[in-house]
């Protein structure tokens, strides 16, 4: 999204140069160079992602050909080894999927498919999905909605919005340590809905929470042991929310808690 906005600014500048006609040749040349550089950045991510997908597909199929015992039965130890291979394939697959999505957001190549959705039901169903994992870590997930039975309809792209809230909720569960809580509140405002997710755990809050919205940054949140990622989850979420003409902000609420605030217009126009 940022690259796309910058590109649009540069094209507007170029347009103005063409109108005033008295511009220096060097100014136009440096502008074209800047546009070329930005275009390169957008195509780079998408090309790299594409090149990663084919070998990944082959590795995946090899793993499943063996685990499905297509070429003969496996010993328990061999099954154990294949489980490790599968787990790491899935990790790599998630990274590539995130990279592709981020490159699509950066270059504004996503087309949203809007539909009416009861946001209360939608968020509750995503929370329900994480309940078991959270319980295993003694983390409580709570939705605090006023009149939970009354639908609150919002026009949005369901599949894309699932990515947003999956990222936000799974991030909270991943980063707060055992015994914390995740609370989700919803405010029905005149033209938009505001969703507030607060997580409180035992990890110290990062000094600059806004860095969590920068790509390839996970600054300050101390991940659980063994977790590695590219830090794309929240930037992807913010990009998708912005495509819906909404906002996503992160605030510090205590020494050991942060709040993610998402606002979404109720209607697309």
């Amino acid at each position, binding site marked *: 999204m940022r690259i796309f906005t910058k590109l649009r600014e540069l094209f507007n500048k170029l347009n103005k140069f063409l109108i005033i006609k008295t511009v220096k040749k060097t100014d136009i040349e440096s502008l074209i160079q800047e546009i070329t550089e930005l275009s390169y950045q957008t195509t780079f991510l998408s090309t790299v992602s594409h090149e990663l997908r084919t070998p990944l597909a082959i590795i995946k199929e090899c793993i499943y050909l063996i685990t499905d015992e297509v070429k003969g039965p496996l010993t328990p130890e061999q099954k154990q080894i294949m489980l490790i291979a599968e787990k790491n394939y899935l990790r790599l697959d998630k990274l590539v999927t995130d990279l592709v999505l981020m490159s699509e957001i950066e270059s504004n*190549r996503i087309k949203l498919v809007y539909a009416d959705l009861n946001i209360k039901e939608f968020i509750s169903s995503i929370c329900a999905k994480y309940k078991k994992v959270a319980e295993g870590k003694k983390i409580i997930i709570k939705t605090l909605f006023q009149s939970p039975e009354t639908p609150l309809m919002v026009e949005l792209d369901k599949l894309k919005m699932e990515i947003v809230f999956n990222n936000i909720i799974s991030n909270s569960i991943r980063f707060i340590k055992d015994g914390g809580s995740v609370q989700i509140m919803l405010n029905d405002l005149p033209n938009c809905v505001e969703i507030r997710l607060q997580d409180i755990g035992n990890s110290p809050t990062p000094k600059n929470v806004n860095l969590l919205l920068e790509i390839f940054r996970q600054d300050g949140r101390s991940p659980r042991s063994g977790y590695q990622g590219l830090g794309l989850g929240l930037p992807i979420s913010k990009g998708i929310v912005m495509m819906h003409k909404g906002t996503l902000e992160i605030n510090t609420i205590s020494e050991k808690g942060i709040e993610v605030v998402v606002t979404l217009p109720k209607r697309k126009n």
Partner: protein
Amino acid sequence: MLKNKILIVDDEEDFVQVVKMRLEFNGFEVSTANDGKEGLQKAREEFPNLIILDAMLPSIDGFKICKLLKFDEKYQNIPVVMLSALSQDMDRTMGLQSGADKYLTKPFNDQELLEVINSLL
């Protein structure tokens, strides 16, 4: 019982080999081609029951092969499943506009591929 024949057209030899193993395990007869020209020729000569077609191929790309087959009365009834690493909305639209019956992206889901094949045969 006569087996259904599937033609896989993809320039990634390793990919062709693993998909071939999977399909043979599930009871299909499999033929393969590693570039667009060979793929088109085999489609016309062997008349498979279904074609799995990559989008980016040497000599003739998958979109063009699909159009050539789907706009030819003789071959238009052969189901074509495009299976490509190109995953953007516009690639999917291009695949379906060129006549593909289904557009799947890599890495694909075995079960989904088999379900799609069975639904098209």
